[in-house]
């Protein structure tokens, strides 16, 4: 070592040594900066810049070495062998290229160590070839031991430096440069010290040897080139830095634009956040820097965050509120460094929207009560619970009486307001835990404890029946309630609902404003009714209907005038079904029109078999009368059967006239024009509006049987019949008295001048065959 030191101190030109050092540093910087530039650019220029970097690094080594040699003052004449000098440069370029080629892109330590050895060897070659090219006028002896020592020390240093330069850790990577420098210095100065020159005037420099005066400018030129390269490298580096700063600020702007909160973390500590996250947490971006991520997301450790799937978490903001968030972790390369980016998305708005959607889906928009969908769920849950625990509960279905009337009369806006008020009153009737729903229209449902069912129903009927004052109008509606108990009246929602519905139906039929509990008989009745309905629908096709006739006679002389046709149903199992049992049902299910038409046709047909002065009277239902094609249909029947219109009498009730007067008016006049007589049936029982008698073309009034029953004892009945008879006479109408059962009653009708009687006194309704026989008897009188 002493030799090395003394060699440095004594045998060198100190100034040149400093220049050598400067050249080395400049060259190294140029090489590194150009290499970095090469790594930034792409395509062919990348390779070109990489080559420039390698050449510049080789030149650096060579120039440093040459300046070092020039600084050497051996105390004798010196020169350079041009071939060896050139070769030393070329070999160095090849060696460094090979070394870099081996090391580039590889993290394998062994490979990098190999590359380091290659680098060391090429630099060692440069040295010793260079030294071999150094010619002096003297003898050259080598201290082999020192050469070996220089190699033994420097080569591992090169290997280590290459390994370190490929390390992930910045601090270790920074050690690589000084390590290489020291290895080079070691190689150089140990090499110089190993060289022992002894002046020998007998030895002269060969002809070809280049004197230092010639070499020095060449070396200087190379050095200058290196300086130029260094400046280029510096420019590239500055440009790259400016670009990086621009990129970063653009990235930051982009990040701040993002709606999601973003945090860049290193080892759980926040490095940077975007504006959204700062706003979300409620502090500045600067304040968040350096805080741990767990202070924001205490329940979600970073390690638990998935890189592929978003997950839910809670963000703790500065004011202590917990914000529901969605979290995603991503490893992102920022610059050359891998960093963890956590994306934090505020879920409050989405959750609010979802809540709103759910509310909309499950609530009745008008009243704010639960809707059918939600109620079905509640009912199912109650049924399941009841089945599991035997705990009973009551299902109340309710329906507003007269609501349709209000809606039609006052308009839908008023109807809606009324429904809202009904909803509020219902809520006031029930405890807060009770489930109330609007199932649609004016239908509501309530679930209460079984023991509260009847009280609740009573309260509801009372409270909903109270008047509603809306915009100066008084509205009176009422509620009917059907109660079914789960699970006794139905263990699943549909059966239970049907039971409650049957109870409600019964309550409504009882006149409304009442509640009914479900009873088994209701189901049976409903079933019976359904069965009857089915039978009734088939009865027409199966020809189970018959027309019976009740004769009508002149009360004075007892002569037949005609007969009233009455429909009868001969049920295959139940026998004769009374009209009161099936006519209302037929009206309800829309069967009355075809049935009425059938009766009319049959009666007309059969009447043609009677003596030609006898009439047949047929009842028309309100539904038939509403049909504007009725007149045409009757005409068709008359044509088909050949019965003259003058022998047909159509009986209508007052209620039939209430609806659609215009159509009725036209129809009745058209029928009158065909010679058909129209009689007002059951007069005296309904409104008995005298204006109808004036407005419509009636030719006959039939006085209801209820008035005849009490004559001649009851003075009021007598007075009514007398009044009606005289009224009819004044209006040019005839009068028929129905239900005449006694001889006194008949005598009374005779004395009052009634034109026709009908009743059990004459005959009950009889089959068509019998009436035909009766009418065709030689003596046409029952008197």
């Amino acid at each position: 070592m002493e030799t090395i030191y003394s060699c440095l101190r004594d045998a060198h030109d100190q100034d040149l040594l400093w220049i050598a050092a400067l050249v080395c540093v400049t060259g190294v910087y140029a090489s590194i900066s150009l290499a970095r530039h090469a790594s930034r650019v792409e395509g062919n220029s990348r390779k070109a810049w990489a080559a420039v970097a390698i050449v510049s690094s080789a030149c650096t080594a060579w120039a440093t070495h040459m300046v070092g040699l020039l600084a050497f003052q051996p105390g004798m004449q010196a020169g350079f062998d041009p071939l060896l000098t050139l070769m030393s440069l070329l070999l160095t370029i090849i060696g460094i290229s090979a070394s870099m080629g081996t090391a580039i892109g590889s993290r394998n330590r062994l490979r990098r160590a190999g590359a380091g050895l290659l680098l060391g060897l090429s630099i060692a070659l440069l040295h010793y070839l260079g030294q071999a090219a150094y010619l002096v006028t003297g003898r050259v002896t080598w201290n082999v031991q020192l050469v070996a020592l220089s190699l033994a020390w420097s080569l591992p240093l090169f290997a280590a430096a290459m390994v370190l330069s490929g390390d992930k850790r910045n601090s270790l990577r920074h050690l690589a440069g000084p390590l290489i420098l020291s290895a080079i210095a070691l190689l150089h100065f140990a090499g110089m010290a190993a060289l022992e020159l002894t002046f020998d005037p007998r030895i002269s420099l060969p002809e070809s040897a280049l004197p230092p005066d010639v070499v020095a400018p060449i070396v200087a030129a190379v050095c200058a080139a290196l300086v130029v390269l260094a400046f280029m490298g510096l420019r590239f580096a500055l440009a790259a830095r400016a670009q990086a700063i621009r990129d970063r600020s653009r990235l930051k702007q982009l990040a701040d634009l993002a709606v999601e909160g973003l945090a860049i973390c290193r080892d759980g500590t926040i490095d940077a956040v975007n504006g959204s996250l700062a706003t979300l947490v409620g502090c500045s971006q600067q304040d968040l820097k350096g805080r741990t991520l767990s202070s924001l997301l205490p329940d979600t450790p970073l390690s638990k965050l998935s890189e592929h799937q978003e997950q839910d978490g809670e963000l703790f903001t500065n004011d202590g509120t917990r914000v529901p968030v969605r979290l995603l972790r991503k490893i992102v390369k920022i610059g050359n460094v891998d960093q963890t980016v956590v994306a934090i998305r505020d879920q409050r708005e989405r959750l609010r929207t979802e809540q709103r959607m759910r509310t909309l889906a499950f609530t009745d928009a008008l009243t704010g009560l639960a809707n059918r969908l939600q109620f079905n769920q509640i009912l199912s849950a109650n049924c399941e619970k009841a089945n599991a625990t035997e705990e009973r509960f009551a299902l109340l279905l309710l329906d507003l009486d007269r609501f349709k009337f209000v809606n039609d009369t006052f308009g839908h806006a008023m109807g809606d307001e009324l429904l809202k008020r009904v909803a509020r009153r219902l809520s006031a009737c029930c405890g807060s835990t009770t489930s109330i729903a609007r199932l649609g229209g004016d239908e509501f449902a309530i679930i209460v404890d079984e023991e509260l069912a009847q009280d609740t129903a009573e309260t509801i009927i009372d409270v909903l029946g109270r008047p509603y004052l809306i915009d100066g109008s008084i509205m009176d509606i009422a509620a009917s309630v059907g109660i079914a108990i789960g699970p006794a009246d139905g263990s699943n929602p549909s059966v239970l609902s049907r039971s409650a519905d049957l109870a409600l139906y019964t309550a409504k039929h009882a006149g409304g404003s009442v509640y009914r509990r479900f009873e088994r008989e209701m189901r049976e009745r409903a079933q019976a009714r359904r069965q009857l309905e089915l039978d009734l629908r088939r009865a027409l096709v199966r020809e189970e209907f018959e027309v019976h006739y009740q004769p009508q006679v002149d009360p004075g002389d007892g002569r037949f005038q005609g007969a009233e046709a009455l429909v009868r149903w001969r049920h295959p199992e139940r026998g004769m079904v009374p009209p009161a049992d099936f006519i209302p049902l037929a009206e309800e299910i829309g069967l009355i029109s075809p049935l009425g038409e059938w009766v009319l046709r049959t009666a007309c047909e059969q009447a043609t078999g009677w003596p030609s002065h006898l009439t047949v009277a047929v009842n028309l239902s309100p539904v038939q009368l509403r049909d504007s094609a009725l007149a045409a249909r009757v005409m068709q029947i008359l044509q088909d059967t050949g019965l003259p219109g003058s022998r047909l009498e159509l009986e209508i009730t007052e209620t039939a006239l209430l609806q659609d007067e215009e159509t009725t008016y036209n129809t009745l006049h058209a029928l009158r024009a065909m010679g058909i007589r129209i009689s007002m049936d059951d007069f005296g029982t309904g409104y008995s509006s005298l204006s109808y008698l004036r407005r419509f073309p009636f030719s006959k009034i039939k006085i209801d049987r209820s008035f005849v029953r009490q004559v001649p004892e009851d003075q009021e009945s007598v007075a009514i019949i007398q009044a009606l008879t005289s009224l009819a006479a004044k209006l040019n109408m005839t009068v028929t008295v129905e239900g005449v059962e006694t001889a006194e009653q008949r005598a009374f009708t005779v004395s009052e001048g009634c034109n026709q009687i009908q009743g059990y006194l004459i005959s009950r309704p009889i089959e068509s065959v019998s009436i035909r026989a009766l009418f065709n008897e030689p003596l046409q009188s029952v008197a």
Partner: protein
Amino acid sequence: MPLYRLLYRSEIALNGSKDQIDHQIDQIVSASEQSNHLSGLTGALIASGGVFIQALEGPLGALEATFEKICLDLRHKRVNLIELAAAEERIFPEWSMIRVAQGAQMIEICTVVGVRESGRLDTSTTSALVSLMRNILLTKSAGSLDNEVAAGASAAIRLPDR
């Protein structure tokens, strides 16, 4: 603003001893006095023989809103609207709400309203009825009985012979 008067009858559905019920009714009156004061209503309440008879007067909107509140109340049953009609002037301008104390004429009023348990009464009858209510209030507060006025009013509300 047009003035309206509303008269209804209902059955008291309060629980407790006579004193307790009386106390509750006083509370109802004072609560309704406060809320009526805010909505510009005036009126009087009779609570006698298990029946409430209340007269309310004021603008239609406030009247309807208050009556809806009354209809939401479960402290009475079978609320029956006797009259809702336009009125020329307030009969009870002095009182947002006041309870008409027990007295002989009250039986009369209750009889009239009680007989007609359902259905509305004609305006002349109800006018006489509220006038009688006012007279009772005035005579009680004046401390002297104006017999003539009371007798006249009670004669007016007597139902026609049937």
